């Protein structure tokens, strides 16, 4: 059903990752989940919303929620975005529902071999970086992939809004 089950099993195949930076760390999401990347998007803050919700953006008439992953991961709020503009990676319908995440910088598209993504749950002896992300709840971090110069944290976009799904009014 979700690609982590099917794809990680099919070792040897390559994944195209859309990568971006947040708090100096490199993250990647499956490019097939990404609809578009928007720079200088106006984010309307939603006062009283949970801290990891940045606000709403308008993508061609559709109002989408923007999530602040810095908050989710407990990073230092380098520049707090209360409204204003930012770079937003927008996910497709295939990720349950379209939404966006606020990032510091959008980087290249990277091809990685499936087998090189280390599932953080599988190996206790992983680097400090992974331990740090263990705090990230709800399985948002799928695993870590060592690139030539640094580590790429592979995220599963489907789980980012997951905690809101489990709460109350789940769409029937």
């Amino acid at each position, binding site marked *: 059903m979700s690609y982590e089950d099917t794809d990680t099993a099919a070792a040897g195949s390559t994944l195209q990752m859309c990568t971006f930076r947040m708090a100096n760390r490199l993250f990647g999401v499956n490019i097939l989940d990404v609809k578009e990347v928007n720079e200088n998007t*106006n984010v309307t803050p*939603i006062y009283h919303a*949970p801290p990891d919700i940045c606000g709403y953006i308008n993508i*061609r*008439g559709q*109002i989408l929620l923007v999530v602040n992953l810095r908050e989710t991961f407990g990073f230092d709020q380098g520049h707090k975005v209360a409204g204003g503009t930012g770079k937003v990676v927008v996910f497709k319908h295939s990720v349950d529902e379209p939404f966006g995440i606020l990032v510091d910088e959008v980087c290249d598209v990277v091809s990685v071999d499936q087998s090189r993504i280390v599932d953080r749950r599988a190996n206790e002896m992983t680097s400090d970086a992974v331990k740090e992300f263990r705090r990230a709840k709800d399985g948002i971090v799928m695993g870590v992939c060592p690139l030539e110069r640094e580590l790429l944290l592979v995220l599963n976009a489907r789980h980012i809004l997951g905690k809101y799904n489990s*709460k109350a009014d*789940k769409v029937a």
Partner: protein
Amino acid sequence: METDNDILAEYIEESREHLSHVEQIFVEIQKTGEVSPGSINDLFRAIHTIKGSAGFLGLTGIGTLTHTMESLLDSLRENRLSMTEQITEALIEGTDILNDMFDDVDNSNNRDTSELIALLKNLNSSAPAPAAPKPAPAAAAPAPAAAPAPAAAPEEKRSVADVLNQFPELAQYVTPEQQAEAAKAATASAPAPAAPAPAPAPAAAASAAPPPTAKKDAVQATEGSKHEEFLRIRVDILDRLMMLAGELVLVRNQQLMHSDQADATLRSITQSLDSVTTELQETIMRTRMQPIGTVFSRFSRVVRELSRKLGKNIDFVTEGDEVELDKNILEAIGDPLTHLVRNACDHGIERPEDRKAAGKTDPGRVTLSAYHESGQIHVDIKDNGKGMNRDVIRRKVLEKKLKTEDELARMSEADLLNLIFLPGFSTAQVITDVSGRGVGMDVVKTGVEKFGGTVSLTSVEGEGSTVKLRLPLTLAIIPSLIVQSGNERFAIPQVNLEELVCLYDKDAFTRVECAGAREVFRLRDTLLPMVRLKEALAREKMFDEDALSMVTEQNSEIRKELADKYKEAEEAGHPIHYSLNFAVLRSGNLRFGLIIDHIHGSEEIVVKPMHRAVKSIALYSGATVLGDGKVAMILDATGLARHYNVRDVSGGREDTKKQKTTMDDGTELRSLLLFSNGGNEQFGVSMQDVKRVEAVETAAIEKIGSQEYITLDGVSTRVVRLEDGLRVQSSSQPENMFFLIPQNARKPYGLLIEKLIDSGHYEVKLNKDSYQADGVEGTALIKKKMTVLVNLEQLMHLVDGMWYGGQV
């Protein structure tokens, strides 16, 4: 009962549609008194279809009833019987029972319908049986229907011989059916003859199944071509289509912006893209619209039942069945309308003897009418019953302690009537005593207001009452005010908005006062609790007394500073200008002032629901995309009031201090808008007749022939000047004037005035003699000045009676 739930659910839904169609036909028949063969065929087909699956699903109760109804309809269809009042009544009753049965399908088999079935059979038995003495003409009818020659018109009669000559193979069908019909007729009229039973019984069973199918095919073939085709579509697919069309519009806009206007080919392509997109969007919008007649039609049944139960004669008339409304709204107005219609029948229309005594026509009349007006749908529920007695309302209000005597004394007639919308006014004892209405009128009001509609009431004692509902065309688009607090803009739905107040200079920091922990403003003798949007947004926790007093204290500090600065600057000769804006919002019976930084103006916004992750925030009712593409949150007045812990601070305390106004000398407290039209004549209009006032530039007025128009919100609006209808001084035509748009107008028009003087409640002692003219109510001394009270409606009639269209 073991049935596949999906199939059953689908069957129920389909059957309901058939039944509502059947009801519509009966309404038509009762209205016109004419029965066309087509409508009988429609009835037959609908009932037959319901019967068909009922047997299959084991719903024997429904099956038996529909079968009996079908037999009767069959006789009608084949002209063996002609429609009588009695038959119509019986069939309608059958339809009603079927409706009930579908409400509770599981128990439908237990329902006792034997009485009705006997009646139906009895009615049918009066038809000449097909096998009776004159077999030829009687049998002629079923034959063409069964014949696979659909081209023959159903009414066209052929003799059996003709048909049999043409289709010899039919001979075998004719006989058993005749036998079956004869057998049925026989058993119905006299259950005694048991002797011939064995033979026809199986034939009857056999004929019940196959021949109707053949008939049905034939009927469908002849009728099918003139029927509109429908397709069931899932609502979410429609929603998605709507959204895509919205996206397409935006893409088109971008393309329009970037296309090279010099290139002729490209320009024409752009133009067609433009028009196609617009049309596409409009068409998709229309998919959600349904005629209000679907809701109206069910009330004929309600009224019929009620009149029978109450022993009254009531005519039920609907107008404007074709007016279309958004599906969601249609579903939502069902209950309030039922309430109002029941009220009209129960309390409005008098008993026959009372009507006669009052010299009224006996069948009372309840009218439901729908029409478009200024971008809204109006639904009027009108009765010509006894109307409402003001004194009884007054007495009841006092009894219930809903208002004090002083308050009542100062109320206008219209305000008094509207008291019946007060919650608490409607308890069982009250209704029957009060000259009429009152059953849950507050429920009706809140129900209608929930989706942005309004309710108003007029009643003339002895002549009847009219309840007017004003409904938005669609739930998705609402007019709203765009305001700003900090860097963000917010939308406030117009329904919650009462008025806007701007305070300037000194007023900005002196008029808002502290009352305990709260900030209040004295708005025309009532204390208005104030809410600061900025503070409400900044605090995530609900405001308690501590938080409130902290905020109040801080702001009173700020006010003091401002006052000092202002004074300093003034003394130094460089006055600073301050302003404070607030919007007066209403949520239920609570009013409060919302302090905001800027007011941007009104905009029609498309409401998008909140994402579930943020849905629990009470402050917002949704979000919308503004004209410039930025998202704005829609403020929820109720949530805001609750978050800020707003309480009704006025509590009538201020009011009771006011000296009592005597009604005896004809003085009345009225809410008026005062204005002047050049010169120093002062005019007034009733606030309740005014929808809104716009500031306009005189340069924007266009002249066509002798008439003047101005475009407001894309609508050409007729400009009426005071001097057109009244002999008063002409306006000096300054650059900026005001345009007063009346409340109840079928056509867009407005009154051009020069200067607004004031608005408020004034004690008016109307003098009708000093200045008499059409379009004028009279004069009164207001603010120590003679004021001409203009009757907007009359004035418009006067200026252009035909064009204005005569609002009731």
